[in-house]
């Protein structure tokens, strides 16, 4: 009998390891640049063709590889960076596993050309799918050039999962710009394939590098962050509260020159901005942390994108406090108060009759503000102590479960379930409940001029009239928005927009669709574009933000957001503003119409902000309570 368990051959092992480290062309670029940085390069040139599968070249002026080390360099677990695992405590280099090069070699045709400065000539090694084809002496400048051709040629499955040229290259340029931000002292040049996408000066000035990546206009507005204590140093820049994005794409954390991802640090940053920026928006930040390598562990993620901090809680608290402090510098205060000032200045109340000034019905501040559930809501929605939270999406907020909780006659019984506050109810997942039909509901009366009582003779229903009407208006508006032929308002003075290379590639990919939505965009030069026309929706102030939102949505989700999604917040406000308010007296007829209209909406059970519109108390439940 053949043995069923066997040890894999080295080639298979390498390919499996490659699967972890070399996920897509972006990983190759990242690993190779990190090698160059570890070799103390001052200048790194990156050339990429297409999406990076056909050709990637990284050329540096670093310390080079000695000819005798060359064959070893492409072996797995071969590294010059550490001697044993205990060296991680003092690790100064970005790499240490000795895995990257071996992994890349196993899935591509790779050539290394290298010459240490002290040697007279360099050596070239050519490999294919892990085997060495040739090593020869060649003339070359000091430093190392790695050329990767035909990436994934022997792993077609991987190739299939790659996205379009624009997406893959967008990811690469995003990664390179992050690395450039981590090392402002190194000059990075990214070419695609011959066009220079960007070029950082390498002067060591972080703000200059930020200006290249985010645009000069943006860089000018940023606030500096400077902090130092005996175990931690933080340097970098954050955006003032007036400058926000709708995703976390522009938040970059760097720990000892290593770009990392960290939910925890993101949260700490957001906490620093708490109440200063609207919910659902995020700041821009480039924060470089310097700390002892013994204070964290990098060996937790295959691509070392995440690291584990020893004292995460304390670090978070520090970052929040530092961010808060930097935001409260005079520069940022001025910008904050400035914004608000102007807003009150032109609000409806201040408007003078004969002057015909435009009233600010809503702007984005209000836009975000209006839909935000009030902080106090959390008090109302406290669950009962001994009660399991009810899943609203399934039970429609019935009080069945409450009764089962054996809590017969409490005055708190009807408090709404916890889920409401979490706002995680996915409208799509909610199905019309089979237990009742809206057509059968009959309005009984209105209480507190806010809630409608209704019945279908099987249950008692309580409907929040404002939430219900909001839902109805929201549906009507969304429908209209879809039907409406988009119109552009042309602009007298175009709005200039600086884009990152990745944003630019998205813009080019979706150019036609943006045009159809009503954006008239013109290339101005470099990565600067002119917005010459914007979608014409009255009361939609700041349409440039919608354009940004479009880019950010694609950046974070990689799919095209629907028009409805982009204008969602705007629809929210309009729906909210035109809906019947609480504290409004309704006749029985009006209530019946409202209920029927609610029943006709796509998701009658929650308002657009995720609060419930209707609560059901079944007859059985009432009977139980009265011990019948």
């Amino acid at each position, binding site marked *: 009998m053949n043995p069923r368990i066997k040890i894999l051959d080295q080639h298979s092992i390498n390919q499996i390891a490659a699967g972890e480290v070399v996920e897509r062309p972006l990983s190759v670029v990242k690993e190779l640049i990190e090698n160059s940085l570890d070799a103390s390069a001052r200048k790194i040139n990156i050339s990429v063709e297409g999406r990076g599968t056909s050709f990637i070249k990284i050329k540096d002026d670093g310390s080079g590889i000695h000819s005798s080390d060359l064959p070893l360099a492409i072996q797995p677990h071969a590294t010059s960076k550490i001697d044993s695992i205990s060296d991680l405590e003092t690790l100064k280099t970005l790499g240490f596993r000795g895995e990257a090069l071996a992994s890349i070699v196993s899935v591509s045709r790779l050539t290394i050309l290298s010459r240490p400065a002290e040697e007279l000539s360099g050596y070239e090694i050519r490999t294919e799918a892990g085997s060495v084809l040739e090593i020869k002496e060649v003339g070359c400048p000091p430093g190392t050039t790695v050329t990767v051709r035909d990436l994934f040629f022997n792993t077609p499955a991987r190739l299939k999962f790659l996205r379009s040229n624009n997406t893959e290259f967008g990811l690469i340029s995003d990664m390179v710009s992050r690395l450039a931000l981590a090392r402002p002292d190194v000059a990075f040049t990214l070419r695609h394939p011959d066009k220079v996408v960007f070029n950082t000066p390498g002067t060591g000035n972080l703000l200059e590098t930020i200006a290249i990546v985010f645009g000069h206009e943006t860089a000018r507005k940023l606030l500096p962050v400077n902090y130092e204590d005996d175990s931690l140093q933080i340097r970098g820049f954050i955006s003032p509260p007036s400058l926000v994005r709708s995703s976390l794409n522009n938040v970059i954390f760097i720990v000892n020159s290593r770009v990392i991802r960290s939910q925890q640090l993101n949260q700490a940053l957001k906490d620093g901005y708490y109440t200063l920026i609207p919910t659902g928006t995020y700041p821009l930040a480039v924060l470089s942390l310097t700390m002892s390598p013994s204070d964290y562990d990098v060996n937790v993620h295959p691509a070392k994108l995440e690291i584990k901090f020893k004292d995460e809680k304390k670090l978070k608290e520090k970052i929040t406090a530092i961010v808060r402090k930097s935001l409260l510098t005079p520069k940022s205060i001025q910008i904050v108060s400035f914004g608000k000032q102007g807003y009150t200045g*032109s609000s409806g109340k201040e408007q003078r009759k004969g002057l*015909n000034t*435009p009233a600010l019905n809503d*702007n984005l501040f209000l836009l975000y503000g209006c839909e935000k559930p009030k902080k106090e809501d959390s008090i109302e929605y406290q669950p009962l102590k001994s009660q399991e939270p009810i899943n609203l999406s399934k039970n429609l907020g019935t009080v069945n479960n409450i009764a089962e909780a054996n809590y017969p006659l409490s005055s708190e019984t009807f408090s709404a379930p916890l889920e409401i506050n979490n706002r995680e109810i996915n409208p799509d997942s909610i199905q019309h409940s089979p237990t009742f039909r809206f057509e059968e509901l009959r309005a009984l009366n209105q209480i507190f001029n806010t809630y409608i009582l209704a019945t279908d003779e099987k249950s008692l229903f309580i409907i929040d009239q404002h939430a219900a009407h909001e839902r109805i208006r929201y549906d009507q508006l969304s429908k209209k928005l879809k039907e409406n*032929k988009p119109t552009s308002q*042309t602009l*007298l*003075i175009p709005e200039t927009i600086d884009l990152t290379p990745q944003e630019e590639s998205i813009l080019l990919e979706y150019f036609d669709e943006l045009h159809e939505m009503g954006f008239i965009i013109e290339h101005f030069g470099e990565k600067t574009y002119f917005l010459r026309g914007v979608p*014409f929706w009255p009361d939609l*102030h700041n349409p440039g933000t919608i354009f940004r939102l479009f880019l950010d949505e694609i950046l974070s989700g990689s799919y095209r957001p629907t028009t409805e999604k982009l204008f969602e917040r705007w629809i929210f406000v309009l729906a909210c503003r035109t809906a019947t308010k609480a504290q409004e007296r309704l006749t029985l007829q009006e209530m019946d119409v409202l209920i029927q209209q609610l029943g006709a909406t796509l998701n009658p059970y929650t308002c657009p902000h995720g609060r419930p519109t209707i609560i059901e108390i079944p007859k059985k439940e009432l009977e139980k309570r009265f011990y019948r």
Partner: protein
Amino acid sequence: MIILCTKEDLLSGVNTVQRAVSTKSTLPILQGIKLSATKEGLWFEATDLELGIRILLPVNIQEEGEVVLPARLFAEVVRRLPDSSIRIESSGHNINIFYNDSHFELNGYDPEEYPEMADIPSGDVIELPGPTFKNMIKQTVFACAVEETRPVFTGLLLQIEKEKISLVSTDTHRLAYSKSLLNGNEKEFSGIIPSKTMQEIYRLVGDEEFLNIKVSKSRVIFNFNNIQVLTRLIEGQFPNYKQVIPQTCNTKLLINTRKLLDTVERASLLSRDNYLKTNTVRFNIENSSININQYSELGKISEQLEIEQEGEDVAISFNAKYIIDLLKIIETDKVILETSGPYSPCVFRPENNEDYLCLVLPLRN
């Protein structure tokens, strides 16, 4: 502080400065009105640090002194005072208002904490003709932007070049420009003044012959009558508006202002109640007439307006609100419309008046 005055005195002081009172609560004392009894008379003062307004009232000062009173409450009290003689006495930060045989005690803020109006301009004095300047504000202020994304557009560009004065405003969808003569002026100034300030100037300037302004780098002070308005200038570069005003056109129309306004207002009724409130109006210009054919779920309108036409036929769409806004400003019987096609900026001017124009950018569909 002891003063003798009337309800009218107090009302005029409060009404003048009230709009400069801060509506934010970050610095509570800014929600107050400062009263300073000096030898000159009684000063009322309010500021939100961007805009400051002061007025001097000639009332009988028995004893000098300063108080800062919560603006809203003080205004409400003043409005409800009887028309008798009034005596106000301060004790510490508080005041006592005596009327008839009664008195009303109000707690105030510490006047020491009230911010001084900083950087009061001491530069050149420029004299402006009051009624003309007021009219220029009316002609331009409506086109300011309300959103704060690009602050320069929330203000009006005031340019004084020797004997010429001009005001320009734009929200990038439209632009209003008004100019006038400044006889005998030798001085120059250029700065962006917040639209709120301009609205206040418009409200407060009476039929005074002249108001004078003094400027510094970051502020301007307007003096007229017994009132001073001190305002911050908006920082930044106002775009070169001269560049965007077209010098030539392919179509030139002369239209009855009143009739066009009525037509556009009627047409926009149709979009008033539609859900998205996309208030567009489309002018089909051909054979010396403007035809408007609009419909929505509410109904349909079809209008024809006789005009004088020179040049090409054209069909062009606008945000109806912009057209209504500007036609309301134009006082001449006829308005000139100049355009070079459906996508180029469209110029509206009063007939026989080179001093005013309003530019509207069309909609493209």
